């Protein structure tokens, strides 16, 4: 199961849905445009609407909800911490106060607003990113980025990381196994002295091995005439159907902006 999932992440799964089939450059540019426009939205309602639109797209692309949640949880430590602190550190009208001895904590309305807006913006960006990666696959995505003008050396770094992360994980697994075969039992927690020093040694050994492997890879690349990062990938021009889909994606946050800008006017019109 996991193996299949990894394969899909890397090799993509063309043809599973219209979004999977969409031309990767148009998809990348459209979703990037979506994120930029959507994160500039300033009301919670419109941000929520943008997130709902992305969720609907993810649903249409038949993406697995559990993987989505898994990915969002990965970002939680970073975003969650900031969102948790913001209400306490932003000055403004206090809506809740706690005093204990010397310490006094207050939650401000402005802080809550800022935290919820930040949280929603990150959510929208992550949803769009997940949609892009999951429906494109790393290989096609990098080709699209290269063709869109992202520097080759930068992409090559990411590509090599993806390529060798599996090799390193296998190496780590073998090292672990070899230790276990000689009777090593890791302690229950990281702060057990033996476990900690063992972890340090493993990381060190892995570092040295990876460095040596890096040297060998470079030699092997030179042996096949490598002389610097590759140029732009050449892709056929996108079809009109792809462009139309891209326009639809970008038009959603644009409409939301229009709604925001003319909220008063809309309300007046409604009346």
């Amino acid at each position: 199961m996991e193996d299949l999932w990894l394969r899909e992440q890397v090799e993509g799964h063309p043809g599973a849905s219209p979004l999977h089939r969409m031309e990767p450059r148009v998809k990348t540019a459209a979703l990037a445009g979506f994120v930029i426009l959507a994160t500039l939205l300033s009301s919670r309602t419109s941000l929520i609407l943008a997130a709902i639109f992305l969720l609907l797209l993810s649903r249409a692309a038949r993406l697995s909800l559990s993987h989505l949640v898994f990915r969002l949880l990965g970002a939680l430590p970073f975003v969650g911490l900031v969102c948790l602190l913001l209400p306490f550190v932003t000055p403004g009208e206090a809506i809740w106060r706690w005093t204990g001895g010397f310490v006094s904590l207050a939650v401000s309305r402005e802080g809550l607003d800022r935290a919820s807006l930040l949280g929603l913006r990150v959510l929208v960006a992550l949803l769009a990113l997940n949609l892009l990666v999951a429906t494109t696959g790393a290989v096609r995505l990098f080709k699209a980025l290269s063709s869109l003008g992202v520097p080759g050396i930068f992409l090559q770094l990411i590509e090599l990381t993806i390529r060798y992360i599996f090799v390193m994980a296998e190496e780590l697994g073998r090292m672990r196994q070899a230790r276990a075969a000689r009777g090593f039992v890791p302690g229950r927690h990281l702060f057990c002295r033996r476990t900690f020093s063992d972890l340090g040694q493993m990381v060190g050994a892995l570092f040295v091995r990876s460095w040596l492997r890096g040297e060998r890879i470079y030699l092997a690349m030179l042996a096949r005439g490598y002389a610097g990062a590759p140029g732009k990938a050449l892709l056929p021009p996108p079809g009109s159907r792809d462009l139309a889909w891209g326009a639809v994606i970008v038009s959603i946050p644009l409409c939301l902006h229009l709604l925001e800008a003319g909220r008063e006017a809309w309300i007046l019109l409604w009346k």
Partner: protein
Amino acid sequence: MDLAVEVEGLHYTYRDGTEALRGLSLSIPRGSRVAIMGPNGAGKSTFLLHLNGLYLPQKGRVQVLGREVNARTARELRSLVGLVFQDPDDQVFSPTVYEDVAFGPLNMGLPPEEVAGRVKEALLAVGMWDHRERHPSRLSYGQKKRVAIAGVLAMGPEIIALDEPMAYLDPQGKEALLEILGRLHARGVTILVATHDVDMAAAWADHVIIMKEGRVLARGEPSLLAREDLVREAGLGLPLVTRIFCALPELELPFLPYTCEQAVRVLREKLLADKNAGHAGIG
């Protein structure tokens, strides 16, 4: 004689002070199948890295296909001499099999149609065409090895040097590899293999070079591998076939066989002779 490789008094010392080559001299005829043998640290891999100018001679000289190896010829030599490294994970680095095989031809600056043609031919030659869209990390070890060879084949080299090609391959993988090497040889490619595998060398090579401590200990026909003194000195073992016949001095053979074919022929002759002698005895 038309030479593929000619080496004279080659020295190479690594930055940490390890003297890997100490006056290596040898010559390899064009179109031959050469096994370069020797213990770990004999300098086999260091020598191979000189063939396409990845390492430049610190002392002495190396000539490949009539060209002196130096900084100026190194680039040209990269496409004339293909190196297949021991660990395919070191060599196969691109996100897809197809792109990896295309890496060398693209570096050579060939036009796209020519690259596509070469990649297809190379992948068909190693039987990996059906896997062209796969990510290398999802392939088996033997498949990665074949992709590594295809990546070198696509550059159309006249010499292919393989470092320990049989290491970690399962028996079927070994057989497939030998078949590929056989086909390449038939096309006129000079093939060098650095290996400890005496059985493979005895069965496959037409030239054997035995190295020790950065020099050539002995060179000649594969029958060298049946000489116990030499093999012992080089830290190798006798081929399995030879070991069996060493244990049978009562056969009184004029020479020690080192391949299965030789062993079968010798035994058959012996059997026939015994049969004839038996008939004569009855008559």
